[in-house]
């Protein structure tokens, strides 16, 4: 007997929905095994990791706050990936947004009236767009691979931020800690409840907006055509270069917005580390959400849960919160693997007779 992958005539609609669920199930299974090898009761550990964070109001608010940047970045990346534009550098655009938006409180700590907040958000977005423009330009002008350029720029942004907060932007009254001034008053996003801030609303609004763009507008049509069939796209009169630029500006802008939202709320100032890898995790969010902006909302919540679970595991089980990264990696692996079944199915075949010469007579 022989296992073969057989191409389906059409994409399977049910696998399209089942594949992420299957991936989640397999991730939980492998996660359970990991806990078992650490000498923990896998069921209890999985409960602490995945269920307990949902049992208090406070932790649900935390979940929304952590999901906000993931969703905001994830929807932008979804649009990119639909168009076959591979922006891997959202983490860098996130950082660039934080730096550009953070300029206002750093240079004008006394600027304490309503306009500073929209200005910060606007600059955050512009910063992300400018940073996204670089790989787009390099790709269109020189044919440079955007996966490499956008990824490398992540480290440039991270080190720039590091240098800024250790050097020129360091808070003069901060006891030499590598931190900028603390953002205050109008420089902080308004919150609802205790911790849920405006960024959550922005993230959901962005997802809804992009779902509309993709389905109902000619721009969305252009993105989908060029992503699935570049030749047909150029026959329709659409420009590949223009879409590469559009996607990078859009996803860069949204990542930048997520960056400034994060430093203007949870973090509250610029410091060497402002993100637990949201820009990279958002790649998983985009794929888990089927590159569908509405799906990304749910995927963002699930990945946010993995961060919460990591913290819970550290506190309650005494294992490193790096376990969150392990879970995220396993999840992406299984999503990509399970996606194979959308266009293929597994079949058991009787082994073919060995291919060889068969002289007759």
């Amino acid at each position, binding site marked *: 007997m022989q296992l073969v992958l057989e191409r389906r005539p059409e994409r399977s609609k049910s696998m399209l929905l089942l594949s992420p669920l299957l991936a989640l199930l397999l991730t939980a299974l492998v996660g359970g095994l990991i806990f078992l090898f650490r000498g923990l009761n896998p069921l209890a550990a999985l409960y602490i990791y995945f269920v307990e964070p949902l049992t208090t109001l406070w932790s649900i608010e935390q979940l929304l706050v952590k999901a906000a940047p993931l969703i905001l970045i994830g929807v932008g990346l979804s649009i990119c990936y639909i168009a076959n534009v591979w922006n891997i550098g959202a983490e860098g655009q996130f950082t660039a947004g934080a730096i550009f938006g953070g300029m206002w409180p750093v240079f004008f700590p006394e600027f304490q009236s309503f306009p500073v907040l929209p200005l910060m958000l606007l600059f955050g977005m512009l910063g992300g767009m400018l940073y996204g423009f670089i790989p787009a330009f390099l790709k269109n002008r020189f044919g440079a691979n955007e996966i490499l350029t956008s990824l490398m720029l992540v480290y440039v942004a991270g080190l720039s931020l590091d240098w800024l907060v250790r050097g020129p932007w360091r808070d003069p009254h901060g006891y030499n800690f590598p931190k900028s001034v603390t953002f205050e008053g109008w420089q902080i996003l308004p919150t609802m409840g205790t911790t849920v801030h405006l960024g959550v609303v922005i993230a959901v609004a962005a997802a809804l907006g992009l779902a509309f763009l993709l389905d109902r507008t000619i721009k969305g049509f252009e993105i989908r055509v060029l992503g699935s069939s570049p030749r047909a796209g150029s026959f329709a*009169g659409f420009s590949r270069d223009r879409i590469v630029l559009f996607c990078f500006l859009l996803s860069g802008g949204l990542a930048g917005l997520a960056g400034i939202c994060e430093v203007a709320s949870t973090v509250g100032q610029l410091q060497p580390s402002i993100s637990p890898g949201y820009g990279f995790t958002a790649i998983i969010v985009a794929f888990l959400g089927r590159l569908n902006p509405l799906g990304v909302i749910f995927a963002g919540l699930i990945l946010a849960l993995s961060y919460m679970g990591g913290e819970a595991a550290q506190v309650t089980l005494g294992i490193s919160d790096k376990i969150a990264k392990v879970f995220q990696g396993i999840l992406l692996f299984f999503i990509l693997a399970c996606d194979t079944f959308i266009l293929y199915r597994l079949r058991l075949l009787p082994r073919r007779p060995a291919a060889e010469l068969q002289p007759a007579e």
Partner: protein
Amino acid sequence: MAGSAKGSEMPSGSKKSKKQAPPKYLLEAINIDKNFGDLKANDQVSLRIEPGEIHALLGENGAGKSTLVKIIYGSLQPTSGEIRWMGRPVSISNPAVARKLGIGMVFQHFSLFEALTVAENIALAMPGDFDMQKLSQTIGRVSKTYGLPLNPDATVGDLSVGERQRIEIVRCLLQQPKLLIMDEPTAVLTPQEADQLFLTLRRLAKEGCAILYISHRLQEVKDLCHRATILRHGKVVAEADPRTETAASLARMMVGADIKVVRPAKARAGGKVKLAINRLGQPALGPFSVALHDIFLEVHEGELVAIAGVAGNGQAELFDALSGERTNPRSDAIVINGTKAGHLGVGARRKLGAAFVPEERLGHGAVANFVLSENVVLTRHNVEAGLIRSGLLDLTKAADVSARVSKDFDVRKPRPDPEARSLSGGNLQKFVVGREMDRRPSILLVNQPTWGVDAGASALIRQALVDLARQGSAVLVISQDLDEIFEIADRIAVLSRGELSPAYPASELTYEAVGLLMAGAHEKTKSSKGERHAISA
């Protein structure tokens, strides 16, 4: 039919006893059938190759040449029929088996790693272990013996197309084949490189290696080959000795003059020029692309002009240049309805009243995973009022258009608005042609309007093209199907190696004349010597 095809000399195969040695034929393919669904790609095809002969396999695109060759090389299995190798029936289940028997093949498109050296590329194809040092020496020796100069240590990326082909040939020769299959080897070569190749092939044949030579360059076949098997519509229509035939008689066998339908031109003379192509030229984009030279053509209102020619002579490039998918720095190279349009993109040219139907239906003319109404938007988004309103799609409107096209052109589909890929080839082609016709374009360009389409759909599409022209539009059709061209065209021009002949009234042309033009009789630039001979043949 003059210049008789020697179809009757085909032996029936059963006369020969299997025990008799040595066998007369190296390879016999007997009554091969190969069906793809309803399509009979090979229909009772028989082919016999003697040791040491250069045997041509002739036929238009789609005649079943590559299917037959793939069966011989083991990459396809016949639906029925028998293959004998040196008199013994064999089953060639995959290319490795074919190579083990002694069959080598040089493909039209090479499979080489550009970053590796010549020797490394060859080593990759060798079965079992090898000694790099010794292999390099062997390569040097073989390439010298057969006049295929190659430096084993050169990096493939630095080599010309001709040199790359030599690697593929040497790679085959190292396995000491008894039969070498060459698929359109001169398609990518300069005339000098082609001459060099012929020397090598003749030498190989003299040493007893048979060569199955696939080509549609008739003069070449006449010069080089000892025998020819000619395929049309999946059947063997003739076996001939090309040395005693003329290029014209070979062309006639290839395209089949017996189904000729000449249609009296009904076009009004002296209409306005709607589409003018003035000295259009452009360089080739890569080794498998064809440069266009100095193309001149005017298409008048009410007229249907057809461009004949064998595939790969610049049809795709001409289509892209006319549609605007590749723009031209000279704006007056293409004039659409009186407006200079050479520099304009495809959208702007559509706005001037032109419409285009490319050869490739899925992936070019339509997006496979989009539903039909979305595919309406694909080519009509900037020419159709109301389809897009302030950036928003009106999909109900698009669905209306899709329904109208489906009704007018009899597009049969499983659901009201299915994905394009779920339609059969003929139905999708009717949709893609109908989508453009529905606009009532004043200029319509169609590349291969009935390629791979069943007879009923073909007739419908051809009639629609003629009707559109009679209503006053200018219609330009690029086609390889001479029957189709003679059926619908008012004037005919022929494209060969990127050069376009003048357009002659269809009533003044014969199949022979078109066949000669297809072989390059009109070419002005320095072509291969062989092709120049075609004029006098």
